[in-house]
Structures are given as structure tokens and as C-alpha cells.
């Protein structure tokens, strides 16, 4: 972490989320811990099924309670969320913490105007009148850069373009000045030029309000743009964490290294094949034993005694930097350097 003296605003400790399904128990999140301080952005990277979205639905209390078993601790500003009642959570959601989803069209009601939808949250938490809420909605739309906010406030979602809808979602999420914003792939459905606008907007708003942001994405490029710290998830577990500089320029986990190796860049060599990670992400219904990455790992045979397939590697975090891998750090450094050299 960039500063350790500050009290974390959000603290997740050893979170376990298990779903019971017809086919068995899905261990969607298996022992995840992280802290987040105000004004910071934590990027969570992972592929589909890595547990990144489940983690955040759990923080917000939006999971299906009937079929979910949760263990661990989630502290928001010192308050335990997992034992909080639905009423308390309702008070917090939209007010202290809020969320932006990937698909803005599906997340907005087609029957209500943008203004009503933004104002609804505001009225619920502040008890403002309809008129005040409308004024607030216009103010928010202006702040997120919608042209002619006093006219567009009466538009329905279908009258907005994709980028504008995402802006409206952000306006709705920020209407009560929440201290924690969870953004789940907010730019994945957008074009690059619009994505760049939205990322800039989030950064600006964060500077203005000091919001803590959890930014979930599968795109390491977006992480490089927006995050301060990064947490890489694989198969429901955190495999590596650190500042974005540490993770992106000197990855310590073979999975992170593999992800970076499988992405072409705008100035890399073109006539060499990419180095993909073999295989495909694991099923969490029946995850691999030991290190969940070992069936796809290039380096698994370098560890003595087949430790990778029998024992779960521990995530040892020193000053916010750590990775969960059985390879001794020295040997890892050499192997990774060879791997990187082979690509260029």
C-alpha cells in the first residue's frame, strides 16, 4: 500500500463465499483479504469465474442469501457488513457505498426517466423533495459531462448513447457522495475512445471527492491507467498483489506473467507468436488441488516434490506486496527473466 499509517476504509479478511448448486458446492471465493484506504483505487484483475464479481456483490450484500455460505469479515469504516441486517445494508447502499455495472442499459429502468432514477437514490437517503432531487440530478448530470443536463434529465435511457448511459450510471452511483465506489467492468462494453473518457471522468471525480474505488476488470491496460494497487485473482483466490507498478513491470506469479505475455501490445514485436497460457480457467465446482493454477503453469515441474499439486501456496504479503507461489523467489526471478527474454 502506498501509505500504511491511514486506517483502511474497507477491510476484507479471509473472505470465503460458497454457493450450493445442484451439482455441488461452488467455492467462488476462497480466502481473500485486502484493505482499501480512501482516495485510492484498487484494481481487481481476473478472468471469468475468478470470483472478482462475487467478492463485490458480497461486499454490497447483493448475493443470494438463501444459497450462499459466507465466512470471514468485511469491515466498512469499522462496521461489520456480513452480520448487518438488510435494513442497515439498505441504508449504506447508494449512500456510503455504491456500484457501477458493466451493462448500463440493463441496469437502468427503461420506464423511468434518467432524472427520476438518479433522484430516487437521493430522495431515499436524504429525504429531499422531488424538486430538490431533480435539481440534484441535473447537477450530477452536469458533473459527469452530459451536455444540456437540464434537458436530458427528462430523457429515458434508450435516448442516451452507450457512453452517456454509463455516465448516467456514474451520476446515479455518486449522487449521495459515497465513500466507496465499486465499478464492475464499467468500460468493457464501451469503445476505446469512450472508455478513455469514462476512465478520465472517474479519476477526476475521485480526486474531487476522495472516493475509494474498487475497479474490476479483465483488461490489464485499464488497470495500468486507473489503479493504484492491483489484486490478481485466479480460481477464487488472490494469487498476487502489489502496486500497479510492481505487478505490471515485475510480476511475481506465473499467472500474472502469463497474462502479460498473452497480450499483444502496440509496439511489441509482431512476427513472433504470442505466449498464451495453455489450457482454460478451472471450474470452481471441482477446482484443482494445491495451487489452482498448477495444471496450466509452465513452471509447476520446477518445484521439488510436486508441492504445487498437493499444497496450497500461501500469500505472504509484506508491505502490501506478495504472491502465492511455491517457487522460491530467487529461482522465480531467473525463470521469469528467461521467459521474458524468449518473447523478445
Amino acid at each position, binding site marked *: 500500500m502506498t501509505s500504511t499509517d491511514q486506517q483502511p476504509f474497507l477491510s476484507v479478511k479471509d473472505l470465503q463465499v460458497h454457493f450450493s448448486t445442484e451439482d455441488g458446492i461452488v467455492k467462488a471465493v476462497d480466502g481473500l483479504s485486502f484493505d482499501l484506504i480512501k482516495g485510492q483505487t484498487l484494481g481487481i484483475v481476473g478472468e471469468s469465474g475468478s470470483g472478482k464479481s462475487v467478492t463485490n456483490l458480497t461486499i454490497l450484500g447483493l448475493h443470494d442469501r438463501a444459497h450462499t455460505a459466507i465466512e470471514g469479515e468485511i469491515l466498512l469504516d469499522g462496521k461489520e457488513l456480513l452480520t448487518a441486517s438488510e435494513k442497515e445494508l439498505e441504508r449504506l447502499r447508494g449512500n456510503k457505498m455504491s456500484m457501477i455495472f458493466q451493462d448500463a442499459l440493463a441496469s437502468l429502468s427503461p420506464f423511468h426517466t434518467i432524472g427520476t432514477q438518479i433522484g430516487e437514490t437521493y430522495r431515499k437517503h436524504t429525504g429531499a423533495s422531488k424538486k430538490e432531487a431533480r435539481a440534484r440530478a441535473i447537477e450530477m448530470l452536469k458533473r459527469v459531462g452530459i451536455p444540456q443536463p437540464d434537458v436530458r434529465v427528462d430523457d429515458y435511457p434508450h435516448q442516451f448513447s*452507450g457512453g452517456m448511459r454509463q455516465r448516467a450510471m456514474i451520476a446515479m452511483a455518486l449522487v449521495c457522495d459515497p465513500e466507496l465506489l465499486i465499478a464492475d467492468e464499467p468500460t468493457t462494453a464501451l*469503445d476505446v475512445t469512450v*472508455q478513455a473518457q469514462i476512465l478520465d471522468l472517474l479519476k477526476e471525480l475521485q480526486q474531487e471527492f476522495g472516493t475509494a474505488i474498487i475497479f474490476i476488470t479483465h483488461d490489464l491496460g485499464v488497470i495500468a491507467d486507473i489503479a493504484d494497487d492491483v489484486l490478481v485473482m485466479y480460481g477464487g483466490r488472490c494469487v498476487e498483489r502489489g502496486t500497479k507498478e510492481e505487478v505490471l513491470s515485475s510480476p511475481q506469479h506465473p499467472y500474472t506473467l502469463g497474462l502479460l505475455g*498473452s497480450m499483444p501490445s*502496440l509496439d511489441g514485436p*509482431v512476427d513472433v507468436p504470442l505466449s*498464451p497460457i495453455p489450457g*482454460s480457467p478451472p471450474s470452481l465446482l471441482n477446482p484443482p488441488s494445491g495451487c489452482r493454477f498448477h495444471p496450466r503453469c509452465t513452471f509447476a515441474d520446477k518445484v521439488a516434490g510436486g508441492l504445487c499439486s498437493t499444497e496450497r501456496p500461501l500469500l505472504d504479503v509484506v508491505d502490501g506486496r506478495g504472491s502465492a507461489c511455491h517457487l522460491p523467489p530467487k529461482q522465480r526471478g531467473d525463470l521469469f527473466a528467461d521467459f521474458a527474454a524468449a518473447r523478445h
Partner: protein
Amino acid sequence: MSNAQPLLDVSGLTKHFPIKGGFPIKRTVGAVQAVDGLDFQVAEGEALGLVGESGCGKSTTGRLITRLLEPTGGKISYRGQDITHAGRRDLAPIRSEIQMIFQDPYASLNPRQTVGKIISGPMEINDINPAGGREARVRELLEIVGLNPEHYNRFPHEFSGGQRQRIGVARALALEPKLIVADEPVSALDVSIQAQVVNLLQKVQRELGIAFVFIAHDLAIVRHFSQRVAVMYLGKIVEIADREDLYDNPRHPYTRALLSAVPEATVDQEPRERIRLTGDVPSPINPPSGCRFRTRCWKATEKCATEAPPLVQVEGNKPGHLTACHYPETADAVPAPRLSKDPEAAA
């Protein structure tokens, strides 16, 4: 490009989708100008990348080339034969030479057919009986795309997304095509799987000498895959060039802005220039007059509003590098306004 006859020659290709409205009698009240006057060629064995944002007409282009859509105007020639409005019968022999790979590996495979049936489908339709039988050919194809030939009798749901896309590739290869149109073939896949499929397509392209029209919105993947790249904006090609020329020396402001907007997973490099376009892509129902990019362009003048810039080799371009702009960028141009509020770049 060589002087030999191109495999595919497209000129003035146009597709307008009519908009019906009115009551009680529906009339055509307007048109979505999805593709409006495209000119490009694809040489044999060449990979041409088509990039652009959503709604720019890149998928429509792919569907026009494969003649899944009927062009409104222009001309498509395949090996010198005009196929613009060719009927079913005339198209039949050509259809086996032009194949398509689709974006969605879930929707593009029939869930009720086995892999063997899916991949041998094109051979059945075209009544092709390879030496050794269709089943042997399918097994060989499965081998080529990196699947286990033993999975011949499995159904699509038994495969992961990346594997399904491999089945799609095997099906496209079944008739030994000369040209494959790949419409966003990797964008539905996880990052670690994307690279596997890109490598497979590249292997196929090189080893079997198949020409590709590779449609994607991911500029880095297009750069990796294609020898030549065309950038589309609102139904038109704004710039087309060899890969190196386009990425190292973009002359159209849109190309430059697009490249600068791609987030890159690096932190140790000096920050790249950042051009932030404002607003969204206008509607193709009522595109801006003159240059279609002018409403978002920082260089736009009166001339841009009245006169559509032709796609030509502007001064300073290498041969084959065509740009449609009245005020092309130069390598050292400072793209002035609307720029970086980015603290890193300012520092």
C-alpha cells in the same frame, strides 16, 4: 500489394438499411448508412485488418464480402469475377472458397449436432468427398486446430469457449477456403485464451496461405495479426496502410486518437500522447456532411463540413498508405487542444 490481380477487389461498396415508418402504410423514411463507399483489395494469402468502433460498419462489410447481405451499391469482385449481385447458383462455388468465423462461439454452433457433424457440414452441403472419407478429414482438421480427434462425437456444450472457437475455425477450414472473414473472432474470449486462438489463426494463415479479413476493435490484436490495416469510421475507410505505416505514422486524426486511447499494460514507459475525443460517434442515419469525423475532430474547418475528403495517398505517405483527410497529421504534430488533464503526462 503486388500488381497481380487481387483475390478480392471491393470498390464503392455501399449498404444502406432502410428504415420503415408511418401508418397505416409503412414507407421507407430513411436509411442507416452502415457502409458508404468502401474501396479496398485483399491479395492472396494476405491478412487485412478492419478496425473501428461499434457502428462503423466493419461487421456489415464482412457480411457483404461473404454475401450474407445484399449490397446496395458498388462492386465486389472475387478473382476477377463480379459477385456483387450474383445469385445462389453462381455463388455456390465461391461460397466454399470464402468462409467466415463468427464472434460468438456459443451462438454459432448448433447445440444439437456433434462436432463431427458440425465440421463436416460444409462438405456435405457442397458434396465434397475427400480421399479417406469425411470423418478422417474432420479428425485431421480437429488435429490442426489443436483439439483431440477423439472428441469427434461430442457436443458443443462439452467444450469451453476457446475450444468452441477452435471448432468454428475447423469448420471454416473444412473446404480449404482461399479467404476467411473473421468477425471479432477473439473478443468473446478470456485474455489468456485470446492469445491461443490468435496464434492458431496466424498459424493457419501462414501455413495454409489463406487470406484473411480480420475484423476487430482491439487495435493491438489487429496489429499483431494483419499485414495491412484499414481504419473505419461511420461507414467509411478513413485510413488504410501497411501495418508499420499505420501504427508508426498515422496520418488521419481519428487513427491517431484511436491509437492514443488504447490502454496499455505498461507503467515503466514514458506516457504516450493522449488525445481525448469528446462526444460519441454520430448516428449513421444522419451522418455529418463532408468529412464524417469532423464533429469530433480538433482540426475541422469550413472545408471539412462541405467537402468529403477522398481516400488518397496524401503528401508524405508511402505508396499504398491512403488517408482521407484535408489536414493530415504529421509525425511531429502536436495534437493541440482537448488534451491531457492527465497529471502524469503534465509532470
